[in-house]
Structures are given as structure tokens and as C-alpha cells.
């Protein structure tokens, strides 16, 4: 493990001169402190409760490099199939913003979307108040690692009252590194929505068939009565490692909806933490994940009801084939003041093979007495009666299976408000199921 951390130190030192030329010392200190936290803490182990079922050994065993300043060879064609139009679209290759591939679309006056490296180079004081605003998170190893390598990403600012007609699409594409050394990137996304504003933010992760490591951190503040639809679409290469952490704070009567689709990656860990920090806020977490072969997808969610009259709805569904493993941990905290909380959590997993596995745990910590909290978990195989019903009408066993798996997923996919995103996600899932449930089943 010590060796694994050394490699991060080497990369950090290598990047430091460039960072020093381009930015303020306040940010430099932030990186330095985060690096120290990361090094003294180390990568998590399965002895820790939060990582009990997910060993990051495959990540620890690799030596990753930061991508060099010259953008990798990625053509507009590679990006085309991942674009969402119309949208304000920032494209990143191996964690670095590529202006030539980005499109600024149309934004209402006062709204601001900028790549983070540019912000850091031209006036990082603008974002300093928004960085590392969730101190407990900074103790998380991957969060500390992200801050240590703070460099590029996106800054989104939606002023009070602004309604964004077009979604903001942040497209992160990763490739193999030069001389076969896998690359890593640590994108940072900051989004603040002023009161009464509304926006959709989409993060897409995809890559060429290569090993790489994406460790992204998204910090979001949703102001009074503002509405955010937040999509995280993870279509990484089947060899990739993906760690994504989302921290959200909502103010009074704010609405935050997270739509998470996680289909790629060899080892994937998604953390979503939403703190409902104002009365009457609404939080929705919808998640769909699918894995085959020996891939692992771990979703940890926390909804922290800190104020009264907040509602949360959470539905996570997973499809696991072959030897794939899933982990779902859904924590709901209801603080003593959070009376009249109405929280509902559902998670279901479909196991398509005898060797597929899911570890699922709802975790309710309720300190208020006048609340409504329900949770349900179900793990199962395809319904044999339904399979026979479909086959008795002429569908083959494989067709029937695919139809039922699709129906299982559709429950979540149909909740994706943006149609192009929904269609793309359905296509991706289709492709994956064609692999997991081949026609000659």
C-alpha cells in the first residue's frame, strides 16, 4: 500500500510547478493539506465499515499518471455519440478541458459555466468560498485525493431566478495513457443554484477500452426554492475504475433530484450525500446500475434530514450478471429537529446468475419522533411464471429474459426527465444486456 501512495506523491510533485505558475497560493495550500490528509489516512480497507464489501486493492495495485498537457488523440467523432443537444457542453479528455470540443450553447445573463482550470488561473477567489464546504467529506480518502489534485473540472453558477432552458452537460472522456501507463483524473465540479433558479446538470463518464481511474467530486448547493436535476451517467470502459462523490446541500423548499445510471467500470464506487438543510426541501435519488463479468458496483447514499418537513424518495435498482457484485448502502438520518420528515427508500436487485452477488443494507438513524420513514429491499431472480407467459406467446427464452430485465430497469429509466438522456441510457443498457443475455441463452 505504501508503494501505491508513493506513486500519487510522485505525480503530485510532478504537477506542482505547473500549478504554482498558474494559481494562487491559497489553492496550493488546500492541495497540500489535502495531500497530507490523504497520505496519513491512506486508501480505505475492507476493515472499514464503509468499505466492507468493496476492496480498492485493484486501484492500489496500479500506478496511475496524470495526463500530460497535450490532449490525447480524440476526434470529434469519438465525442459525437456522447453529445447531448441542445446543451451547454464542456468536454474533458483525461480530466482536462478541451475548448475545441466544447460548446457554450445559450445561457441566461448572469449564469456562469466555466472550466475550473481557467477559474484557478484567472481568479480562484471566486470559487474559494464554495470549495471544501463539507468538512466531514474532506476526511474521506478519495475526496482528499481529489482536492490534493484539484486542477480542472467545472464551475457552474446559476443566479437567483434564472431558469436554464438548456441542460449543462459535462462530458468526461478517458483514454489509455502513453507507454501503457494508465491515466488518472480528479475532476472537481462545483455548482451553486441561487434562490428560485432551475437547472439540469449532466455528468457523463466514458472512455476508450482501456484501464484508467476517474475520481470525481461534485459539490452542489441548491438555494431556497431552487430546482436541480442532476444526472450522473457512468458509461466507463469495463476495465476502468470510477470513484464518484457527490455532496449536496439544499436550502428551504429546494428540490434536488439525482439520476444515477452506472453501467460501466471494473470497480465503481458512487457516494451521494444530500443534506436537507432547509425546511420543506425535497430530495429524490434514482439509481440504476448494471454489471456483468467480474465487475463491482458500489452505491452508498446518505440523505440527511436536518430540518423539518423535508421529503425524500429513493429508488435504486441493480442488474447483476455473471460473477458481478453489487453493494447498496442507503442511509437515512433524521435529526432531532427534523419533525414531519417523510422518507421512502426502495432498493431492488436482480441477479441473473447464481454467481452474481449483492450486499444490501438500509440504514435508518432516526432521532425525531414525528416522522414517516419506510424502506424496502428485495433481491431476486427473474419471475419464472412471467418468463413462461412470454415464451408461451412465441418469444424465445433469451428475448423473454431481456424483456423482463428491461422492464425492471425501465422503472428507473422512465423517471429520467430528459428524453435524449433516457434514450441513450436505454441503448447502453441494451448493448450491455446483449452481452449478459446472449441470444443463444
Amino acid at each position, binding site marked *: 500500500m505504501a508503494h501505491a501512495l508513493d506513486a500519487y506523491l510522485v505525480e503530485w510533485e510532478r504537477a506542482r510547478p505547473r500549478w504554482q505558475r498558474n494559481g494562487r497560493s491559497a489553492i496550493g495550500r488546500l492541495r497540500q493539506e489535502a495531500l497530507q490528509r490523504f497520505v496519513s489516512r491512506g486508501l480505505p480497507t475492507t476493515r472499514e465499515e464503509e468499505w466492507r464489501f468493496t476492496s480498492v486493492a485493484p486501484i492500489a495495485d496500479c500506478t496511475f499518471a496524470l495526463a500530460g498537457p497535450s490532449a490525447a488523440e480524440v476526434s470529434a467523432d469519438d465525442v459525437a455519440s456522447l453529445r447531448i443537444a441542445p446543451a451547454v457542453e464542456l468536454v474533458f479528455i483525461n480530466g482536462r478541458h478541451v475548448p475545441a470540443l466544447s460548446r457554450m450553447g445559450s445561457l441566461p445573463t448572469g449564469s456562469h459555466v466555466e472550466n475550473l482550470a481557467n477559474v484557478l488561473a484567472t481568479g480562484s477567489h471566486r470559487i474559494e468560498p464554495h470549495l471544501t464546504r463539507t468538512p466531514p467529506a474532506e476526511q474521506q480518502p478519495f475526496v482528499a485525493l481529489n482536492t490534493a489534485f484539484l486542477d480542472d473540472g467545472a464551475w457552474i453558477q446559476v443566479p437567483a431566478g434564472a431558469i436554464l432552458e438548456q441542460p449543462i452537460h459535462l462530458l468526461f472522456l478517458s483514454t489509455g495513457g502513453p507507454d501503457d501507463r494508465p491515466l488518472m483524473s480528479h475532476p472537481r465540479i462545483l455548482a451553486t443554484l441561487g434562490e428560485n433558479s432551475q437547472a439540469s446538470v449532466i455528468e457523463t463518464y466514458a472512455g476508450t477500452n482501456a484501464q484508467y481511474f476517474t475520481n470525481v467530486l461534485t459539490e452542489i448547493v441548491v438555494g431556497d426554492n431552487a430546482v436541480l436535476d442532476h444526472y450522473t451517467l457512468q458509461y466507463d470502459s469495463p476495465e476502468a475504475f470510477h470513484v464518484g462523490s457527490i455532496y449536496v446541500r439544499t436550502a428551504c423548499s429546494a428540490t434536488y433530484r439525482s439520476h444515477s445510471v452506472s453501467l460501466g467500470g471494473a470497480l465503481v464506487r458512487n457516494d451521494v450525500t444530500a443534506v436537507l438543510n432547509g425546511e420543506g426541501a425535497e430530495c429524490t435519488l434514482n439509481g440504476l446500475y448494471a454489471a456483468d463479468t467480474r465487475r463491482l458496483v458500489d452505491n452508498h447514499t446518505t440523505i440527511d434530514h436536518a430540518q423539518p418537513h423535508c421529503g425524500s424518495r429513493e429508488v435504486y435498482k441493480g442488474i447483476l450478471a455473471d460473477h458481478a457484485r453489487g453493494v447498496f448502502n442507503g442511509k437515512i438520518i433524521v435529526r432531532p429537529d427534523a419533525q414531519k420528515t417523510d422518507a421512502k427508500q426502495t432498493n431492488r436487485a436482480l441477479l441473473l446468475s447464481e454467481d452474481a452477488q449483492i450486499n444490501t443494507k438500509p440504514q435508518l438513524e432516526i432521532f425525531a419522533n414525528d416522522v414517516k420513514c419506510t424502506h424496502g429491499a428485495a433481491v431476486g431472480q427473474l*419471475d*419464472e*411464471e*412471467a418468463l*413462461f*407467459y*412470454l*415464451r*408461451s*406467446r*412465441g*418469444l*424465445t*427464452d433469451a*428475448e*423473454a429474459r431481456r*424483456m*423482463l430485465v*428491461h*422492464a*425492471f430497469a*425501465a*422503472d428507473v429509466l422512465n423517471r429520467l426527465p430528459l428524453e435524449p438522456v433516457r434514450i441513450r441510457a436505454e441503448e447502453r443498457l441494451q448493448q450491455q444486456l446483449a452481452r449478459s443475455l446472449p441470444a443463444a441463452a
Partner: protein
Amino acid sequence: MLKVMNLHAGVGGREILRGIDLSIEAGEVHAIMGPNGSGKSTLARVLAGHPEYQATEGAALFGGEDLFAMDPESRARAGVFMAFQYPVEIPGVHNAYFLKAALNAVRAHRGQEELDAVEFMALVRDRMKQLGIDESLLNRPVNEGFSGGEKKRNEIFQMAVLEPRLAILDETDSGLDIDALKIVAHGVNAMRRPDRAFLLVTHYQRLLNYVVPDVVHVLADGRIVRSGGKELALELEERGYGWLEAAAPTVVGG
């Protein structure tokens, strides 16, 4: 069209059918009646290929082909249709989507071209109109939240779209009010053709007031204990099943 010879079948190692002989010609309507537990539904399910039901002895030929050598989808494609006693709810699969896939699978087997969305909808609307079925049913998930009557009507609707050669109705009439029963009966009568056969599995004589069968068989304890014309159904209605079981020397309990 269907020839069943000395069929023994059961579920989970328990024998339920103990030697069924049955011959159904094209154009005929046969009714299978019998008390609860006599094996009526087992017969329907084993013919349709339900994986939990196994034929342990005997044979069944459909159009000269060994039925039990075919998987359920091959039977469906060859023209066997079973209306389920308890149609399965399938959340998330829309009726229209499912039925189009099924119809095109069956058509492909018959060497017919696939129907596109427009042609499919035209066919489906026509059948719905004939059966007095509301079009909203198409956009709902298969059987989900359907009332008992709606589920049974949906089975008949699927039959009308798929146009099987042999339709097996497994207690489709059970639990229906008179209006729904008439719709089911009308659906069957409208589809009677010289090249199509029906096997109506029913507990009650009521359906046979509306669909007149050519042959009525009485099943008791896994065997056909009597076969006759439509009058046999009326006799059963009047006298119940008890006299038959008592009067049939070939039926040995246990």
C-alpha cells in the same frame, strides 16, 4: 390436429394425469370438464409447455409433430395458444410492445413478413373493436392492475391477434360476470374456422351456453371418464360430478 395418447403427467414428481387419450380434429371445439383437482389445468399446462409440468409417459402429436420435443416458444410459433387461468402480471412490459414482438415471432415462423408499427396497430385496433376492448389496455403493462375480467379479456385479445391453430382456454370463464363471459364466448365463436381447433377447459357448463362444443370430455382423477356431445355438459350441470365418479368403474381412487 392434436392427438394425445396415454398421457401421464405431473408436477414435482406427483402424478396428476394418469393416461389421457384425446383426439381433436381441425375445426372442432372440445370441452374438458371436471371437478377441482381432476387435472384439467395440468392438461392445459403440459400441452402449452409449462416448465414445472412434466409428461412422464405417453405422447402428444400436434400436426404430426412431437409436442413434448418442442419448447414453449416453438409450440406457440407452431400455433398452440393457451389462455392462462391466472394471467401473469408483468410490470414494465407494455401490452402493445409485447404483443408486437410475439406476433412478429409467430409470423416469422409462418414465413410471413413482420408487421411494422402502423400495420400492427391497424390489426390490433380491428381485433379490439371486434372484442369490445378499450384501446387504453394497449398502453398498460401486461395485466398489471387489470381486474380479473380484464385479464381474461386480454387473453382472448391476444388469441385474436396471434391467430393460433389450436387454442386452449384454461378456465377462462371462471370468475367472469355475464358480460365478460359473453365477450369471451363471442371472441371464441368469431374465431371458429375449419382449420382451427379449441380446447375449452372449464369447471362450469355456463360458457357452453354460448360456445357450443362438438365434444365434451369429463375428467376425473387424471383420466377422461366420459366423452359425449354437448348434452353431456347439461347433464353435468344438473347432476354435478359426484354421480360420474361413483359410476365410473375405471376410476380407482388413490
